[in-house]
């Protein structure tokens, strides 16, 4: 059974990394706001860039704040594979149809 003192000692040493993660999350948010406000990219490319930045931010939150990085490999694989798999399925159901509507020029 985990000894509370040992557990605390291990994690107190690494508390600083959570402040770094918080700092990077704020920096990435600022980058997103500047990119969007200055309209650096065209809308489709802007969406791609913002989605990539959001995925990086969510990976930091899931890995560090939600502690998934420190869980067992089985837990990590089970959760990430299941959720990513579902999103891929959703994408293939929805977006070809959305693209078709754009090509049809529906008003």
């Amino acid at each position, binding site marked *: *059974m985990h000894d509370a003192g040992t557990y605390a000692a291990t994690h107190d040493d690494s508390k600083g990394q959570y402040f770094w993660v918080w700092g990077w999350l704020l920096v990435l948010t600022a980058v997103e706001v500047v990119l969007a406000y200055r309209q650096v990219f065209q809308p489709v490319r802007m969406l791609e860039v*913002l989605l990539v930045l959001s995925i990086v931010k*969510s990976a930091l*939150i899931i890995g560090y704040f939600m502690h998934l990085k420190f*869980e067992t490999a089985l837990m990590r694989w089970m959760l990430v594979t299941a959720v990513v798999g579902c999103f891929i399925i959703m994408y293939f159901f929805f977006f070809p149809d*959305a693209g078709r509507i754009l090509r049809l020029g529906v*008003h």
Partner: protein
Amino acid sequence: MANAALEHGAVEHGLSGVYEAPLFGAYSKKVGMWLFLASDSLTFGALLFAFSYNRISTQGWPTPFGKDSIANATIMTACLLSSSLTMVLGVFAAQRRDRAWTRNWLLATMVFGTAFIVLHGMEWSKLISEGLTLPGFPKPAGQAGEFAAVSAAVPQFPATFFGLTAMHMLHVTIGVIYLGVVAFRKWFLPVLGVIWIAGYFLIPSDNVFHYGIHALGLGLLVSAVILFLKPKDYDAHDVEVAGLYWHFVDLVWMFIFPLVYLMSTKI
């Protein structure tokens, strides 16, 4: 020897010889919360897909978010990110059995969460007063603003915007109540009751939150049932599991903020 090996990864329930075998290397409360969050992520995923689909396939999609809205949303994002940090610090305090600092950090998390809800509510009220509305929303006093035409011409925008952000705001509200119950237990009930009643009387009846505040009443009822029917001292595991829910709420906003606000900036 076998018992020692089992004990290493197990949770002891205080009854001799009774152990809960770890599933996926974690206690069952944590696995249960992760499974719930996986399913909830699909709910938000579906809402985000619906928003994105409408965004792509609708001609003349409005871009109503000016400098003030983007600044407001950026402050809201900073509040949620800071609340995640204070939540992590609360979990550390719980693990070293420091009750006072566990409560302090959970209270800080609740303050940031409440700030997010208040700022979001103010944003909603501003948009609704300018005419962006849904059937069933109370009509604000005064003339319809610049978004009245938007609501009529592109009804998908208010429908997806309010649907998505309402779902998220509800999750944040439930999260604040959850943290209040874990941090303060029965002491939180009268506080929640006062906020509910005060909100109902202080928010004008032409504001949608005059009716939305009743979510706090429902939260009060559910919390009271849990606290009186199953009273317990919430330990580090309970704080950690509450933290998982809170971080998930932050995680969802990391997608809503860029897709909804940053992709619809009015320059």
